[in-house]
């Protein structure tokens, strides 16, 4: 980006670069350092910790209100599908809408400039300043100017750019980047703000009184507004039918920036194009509500050309990687983004580290997705590793962007570009070779005995000297807060081998006159090798419900662990193995269903496999994956939607007196709630079928922090998320914590063990098996 810079300005560029080096929040700092700094920022941690639940509540309230008052057409679900349609149309017909927008805007007197790169956009604005002798510009919030690093560019060339949005200005004073797209200084205390304002103004400003601090901005920026010859703003939408720029603000600075200076420059990405006012109203309904839980912002402004004849208006449209996104059949969906930051607000790892680490200029889930296109895969590689694939972001996106799967696509690209860490390569490679993996696991299940000492856990204290071996440091650190599970000396496959798992009662046939349901049980590698007792419980419960169970001995890992790490090669190998094994098992047993008590495996097979074979362009496997998916069901759905719905009666022990032992709290695993849409089923089973007391924990539907390999790569983040979950669970007073996903259970169980908490952590099937009469 370095243009021909006059010598006297090279100095200021150098000193700006030095400042950046010293600034731990700047995106040019290595990711690891930004992350370390973020994890140490106690203020940001508590601010984000308070914000997350309060935002969720406000958002729920505002969308609930709209639906209650105006009906289902105004529900979030309906409105977002309308906006998605409108944005998809705009993306599909971009040249048409662009031509229309341009024609209308120019007819109204605006000058439209199309910038292909960040450099072109910055240079256009800089040259406009030099032509007019402008050395001071006032800015209202525009993410695109941060994307192109406009302020840096102008300042290196002697032009002062003043941010007038309160949060952006304070960040500017602190020489820091905003840590959130909508709340730039959420990471700052009022004390810090008061100090910054005191230094900037030379007056003593209160460290406590926020109203007084806010009043400062009105005074300090008055001169800038009145004297600046250029105002630079963003756009929330570019309405093609009239050539109108739509802008949402709360403070009032946006209207001053765009009205007072004689020259107004709008910077906007092409993706801001939308067809009509009607569609813009839908966007209006969704944007503020998703961002802050407001019904609408204080000001929504519609600018069509320069308002008066003495004014000049330029609209700089920025590509900077957007056309590459548009050309990609998957990433084109991300162009629908309306920059609401809901995907940041709901994200559990974001909540722990904030926007400086969880992104690169653009933060939150969308930041992980677009960064490779605007700033390169290097910039995106670090931040994407923080994603735990909980899928919460997708549930709140007002334009239905498939963020979780796009993030995994970015992960895959990062792995292609940079390779996999050797340990992962070794593990996935082993998993993809079932016979070798079997031998290796059996070996480890014996070799670990001195360390597990007969317990089900590998604990730090028992690692001893082993912990000092090379490569063990990460394991030791992990075991410190999450006791690791031991390999079962007798895996599930051994326990069921040769057995006939027939119904333990004849109820199905007798009571319903229907033939017995048969299922193929797909245990998943975790249940098989680490928690065979969970598998045994599943089988016991199914048999007690009159179901015939078969266990295909050839089953292995579904491949999720590799796919989620961006390793498509090993993941696809395991997917193909799994499909083949289950097809054969179905053929042999004539089973009605393939059943798994691992929600993660189920989602992997019924959702992820299809996408994988589409991306690999293997239509044969895609067809087979689709056919297999029809037969696959998770344990909870099977119990509730099939067995109980068919009138199956479970003989359970009486609830009896309410002893502590039968008070249960339930964790909604991400796959179950966000991917499979399950919520009431498990609760129905626990309360109505088992007759137990269920106490809801706060935020039962927030991720437990396991996130597959994320808990190893980013142990501290995973630990914090886990602690939130365990604290929430404990707060109910329940003695038993239940979930239906072995990954979550391993994580939570290990956390309970390492912290000495007193809670039993069970799979739903284990709870049911315990309560059978």
């Amino acid at each position, binding site marked *: 980006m370095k243009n021909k810079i006059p010598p006297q300005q090279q100095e200021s560029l150098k000193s700006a670069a030095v400042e950046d080096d010293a600034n731990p929040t700047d995106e040019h700092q290595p990711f690891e350092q930004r992350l370390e700094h973020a994890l140490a920022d106690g203020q940001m941690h508590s601010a984000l910790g308070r914000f997350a639940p309060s935002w969720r509540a406000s958002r729920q309230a505002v969308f609930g209100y709209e639906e209650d008052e105006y009906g289902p057409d105004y529900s979030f679900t309906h409105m977002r599908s309308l906006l998605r349609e409108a944005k998809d149309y705009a993306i599909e017909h971009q040249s048409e809408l662009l031509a229309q927008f341009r024609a209308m805007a120019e007819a109204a007197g605006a000058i439209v400039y199309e910038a292909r790169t960040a450099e072109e956009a910055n240079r256009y604005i800089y040259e406009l300043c030099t032509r007019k002798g402008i050395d001071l510009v006032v800015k209202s919030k525009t993410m695109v100017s941060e994307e192109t690093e406009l302020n840096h560019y102008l300042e290196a060339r002697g032009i002062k750019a003043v941010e007038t949005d309160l949060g952006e200005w304070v960040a500017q004073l602190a020489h820091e980047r905003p840590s959130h797209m909508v709340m730039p200084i959420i990471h700052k205390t009022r004390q810090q703000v008061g100090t910054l304002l005191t230094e900037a103004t030379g007056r003593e400003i209160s460290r406590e009184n*926020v109203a007084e601090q806010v009043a400062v901005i009105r005074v300090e920026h008055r001169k800038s507004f009145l004297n600046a010859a250029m105002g630079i703003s963003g756009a929330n939408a570019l309405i093609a039918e009239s050539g109108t720029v739509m802008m949402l603000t*709360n*403070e009032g600075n946006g209207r001053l920036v765009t*009205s007072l200076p004689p020259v107004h420059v709008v910077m906007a990405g092409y993706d801001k194009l939308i067809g009509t006012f009607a569609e813009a109203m839908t966007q209006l309904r969704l944007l503020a509500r998703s961002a802050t839980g407001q019904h609408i912002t*204080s000001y*929504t*402004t519609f*600018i069509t050309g320069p*308002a008066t004849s003495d004014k000049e208006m330029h609209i700089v449209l920025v590509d900077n990687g957007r056309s590459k996104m548009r050309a990609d059949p998957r990433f084109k969906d991300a162009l629908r983004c309306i920059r609401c930051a809901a995907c940041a607000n709901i994200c559990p790892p974001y909540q722990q580290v904030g926007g400086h680490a969880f992104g690169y200029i653009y933060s939150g889930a969308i930041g992980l997705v677009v960064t490779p296109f605007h700033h390169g895969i290097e910039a995106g590689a670090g931040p994407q590793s923080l994603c735990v694939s909980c899928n919460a972001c997708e549930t709140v996106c007002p334009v239905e962007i498939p963020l979780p799967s796009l993030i995994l696509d970015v992960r895959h690209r990062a792995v292609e570009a940079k390779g996999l860490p050797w340990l992962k390569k070794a593990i996935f490679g082993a998993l993809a070779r079932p016979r070798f993996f079997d031998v290796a696991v059996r070996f480890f299940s014996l070799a670990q005995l001195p360390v597990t000492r007969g317990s089900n856990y590998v604990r730090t204290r028992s690692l001893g000297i082993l912990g000092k071996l090379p490569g063990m440091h990460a394991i030791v650190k992990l075991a410190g807060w999450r006791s690791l599970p031991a390999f079962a000396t007798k895996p599930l496959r051994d326990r069921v081998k040769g057995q006939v798992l027939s119904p333990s009662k004849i109820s199905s046939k007798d009571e319903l006159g229907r033939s017995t349901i048969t299922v193929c049980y797909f245990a998943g590698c975790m249940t098989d090798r680490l928690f065979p007792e969970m598998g045994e419980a599943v089988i016991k419960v199914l048999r007690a419900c009159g179901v015939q169970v078969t266990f295909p001995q050839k089953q292995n890992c579904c491949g999720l662990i590799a796919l989620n790490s961006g390793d498509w090669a090993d993941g696809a190998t395991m997917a193909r193995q799994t499909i083949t094994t289950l097809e054969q098992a179905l053929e042999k047993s004539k089973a009605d269903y393939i059943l798994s008590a691992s929600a993660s495996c189920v989602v992997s097979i019924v959702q992820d496999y299809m996408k994988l074979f589409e991306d690999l362009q293997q239509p044969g496997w895609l067809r087979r994956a689709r056919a297999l998916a029809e037969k696959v069901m998770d344990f909870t759905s099977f119990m509730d939607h099939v067995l109980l719905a068919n009138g199956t009666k479970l003989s359970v022990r009486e609830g009896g007196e309410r002893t502590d032992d039968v008070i249960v709290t339930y964790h909604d695993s991400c796959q179950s709630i966000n991917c499979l849409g399950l919520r009431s089923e498990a609760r129905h089973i626990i309360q109505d079928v088992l007759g137990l007391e269920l106490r809801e924990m706060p935020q039962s539907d927030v991720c437990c922090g396991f996130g597959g390999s994320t808990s190893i790569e980013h142990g501290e983040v995973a630990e914090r998320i886990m602690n939130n979950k365990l604290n929430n669970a404990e707060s109910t007073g329940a003695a038993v914590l239940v979930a239906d996903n072995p990954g979550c259970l391993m994580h939570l169980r290990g956390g309970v063990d390492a912290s000495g908490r007193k809670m039993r952590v069970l799979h739903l099937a284990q709870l049911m098996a315990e309560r059978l009469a």
Partner: protein
Amino acid sequence: MTTIDPFVRFQERLTAVGGEAHAVAGITQAAEVISSHPALTDGEVIVAPNFAACQPWGAILPLLTSKGIKIREAGSPASVADAPAGISGAELAIAETGSVLLAENSLEARVVGMLTLTHFVLVREERLLPMLEDAGNLLQKLTVAGPDQRRYISLVTGPSRTADIERTLTIGVQGPRVLCVIVVG
């Protein structure tokens, strides 16, 4: 689904964001609301240069003058900045969000609503419409190219605000601290 009187809804939404909403029978009562408002202790109110001639709101000016209130026409932004009170007319009000739609092209007219501390907005009762779709329809019409094209339109919902510092809400930042909408029958 509920059907609520539009003004009741409008008032509910506007007061929820810290604005004021009044429904009055006519322009005389509107003048009363303004003149008795605490913002008028200074006795001066700013209006756009063409306000006196605008229908129907121009008629309010002599009513205010008769109560001893000085009328000043907005000039440069600097001259209006932080003036205690300003009055504008709105094209439309939207009940769903408690918003008013202002569509004056001239800078002087617009700074009345951008830089004064208390902003009074007058809107006719028949222009109080239920939903944002209604705003969208009007926006479409107002932006059509031609001599009456409105080039700078704002949907204003309450006073200016920020929660940027520790998420503590502060009303009154760069824009007005008080927004008072008077719906005139």
